[in-house]
């Protein structure tokens, strides 16, 4: 009589070592198939208590800022050099004059603010004035102690601007309201609601690339031009401090 217990223990599938080997290779195979994701995710949990702390994060961010600042400085230098070659307008941090608003007429017909800096401080007619957010207007008159700014919302104001996303130039015309009109002298242009508007880099009146506003709506019904309504970034009716940008040739 054959001993059945002995037979079962000798069959290959009943050998524990073999199952262990199969399981091991299946694991290896799954690791291979998953392209090591399992290990990586496991390592995520294992290494979590030893991750770099806030201090190291600040070191990394600080060096990143330094790197970006160096790049900006270099780009500014390049930009200034190129603009000098093209004889276009430019401005620098040294040429900014801080001024406070001492009178404001933004509601009625007149759209102007009066600043407490004048010719004595170096303010000249035609200098650009920026508030928190972007351009608010251009110096229209300068007395010895004060200067008045014609706001972009004035019906007399006309400024060359450009849509930075699609590199299209246009003319920003004041309408008396807080939302000036932007006229592109061509139809079927790549202009969208939400596009940012900056002062034109080709302008001979204003320093380049000063933020001005965001396109609020588009009127495509006009015959030969594309007209957009622009929401200004800097709101003159709520600004108390401004900076006058001295134009450098």
């Amino acid at each position: 009589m054959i001993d059945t217990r002995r037979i079962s223990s000798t069959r290959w599938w009943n050998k524990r070592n073999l199952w262990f080997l199969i399981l091991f290779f299946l694991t290896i195979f799954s690791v291979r198939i998953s392209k090591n994701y399992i290990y990586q995710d496991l390592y995520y949990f294992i290494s979590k208590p030893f991750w770099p702390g806030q201090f190291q994060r600040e070191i990394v961010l600080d060096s990143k800022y330094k790197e970006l600042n160096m790049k900006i400085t270099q780009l500014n230098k390049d930009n200034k050099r190129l603009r000098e070659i093209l004889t276009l307008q430019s401005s620098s941090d040294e040429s900014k004059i801080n001024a406070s608003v001492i009178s404001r007429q933004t509601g009625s017909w007149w759209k102007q603010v009066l600043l407490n800096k004048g010719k004595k401080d170096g303010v000249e007619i035609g200098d650009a004035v920026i508030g928190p957010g972007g351009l608010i207007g251009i110096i229209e008159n300068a007395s010895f102690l004060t200067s008045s700014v014609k706001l972009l919302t004035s019906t007399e104001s006309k400024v060359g601007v450009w849509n930075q996303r699609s590199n299209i130039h246009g003319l920003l015309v004041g309408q008396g309201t807080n939302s000036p009109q932007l006229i592109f002298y061509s139809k079927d242009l790549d202009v969208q609601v939400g596009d940012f508007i900056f002062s034109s880099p080709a302008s001979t009146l204003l320093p380049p690339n000063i933020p001005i506003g965001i396109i609020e709506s588009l009127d495509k019904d006009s015959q030969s031009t594309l007209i957009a309504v622009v929401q200004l970034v800097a709101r003159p009716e709520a600004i108390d401090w401004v900076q006058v940008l001295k134009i450098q040739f």
Partner: protein
Amino acid sequence: MKKIINKNFSLLTFLFIPFLFFGNPKFLTLMGVEPYWAILWLFPWSYINGPFNGFLTGLALGIVLDSLNSDFYTHIPGLVACGILFGRLSSYKFDSINIFKYGLFCALGSLICNFLYWGQIFFNNYSDMNILLVSHGIKTIFAQVFITGILAPIVCTWLFNIFKKK
């Protein structure tokens, strides 16, 4: 000197009008629009001194206001017309014009001045005229007419007292 100032005090108050435009107190504005201070001064002055004086002071006020900003448009026609109009009211008895009518006359004067000013903007921008420009004009006219009319009884009564005393 004191005598001269006392004698011409009513005319000297004229010099304070530009400061009111600059000061532009926010609590006296309606939808950001200030009262037409020039009309509030011109009405009592012209009423007391007659149409010719009204014409002259209207012209002077217009020149001063135009110098405050360098817009292409002028306040002179409106203020001159109001100066003459208010001056012609002097032929009526003073008692027949009560303080509530001050508001009405000042509002009317403000309407004339604003309408003439807006007319200039309208014709200058006729080719680019759009709903924004029109709505801004209408809002400004009505807000200024209303706030000028509201303040007129207080301001004009005070000015009438000063001008009559002097």
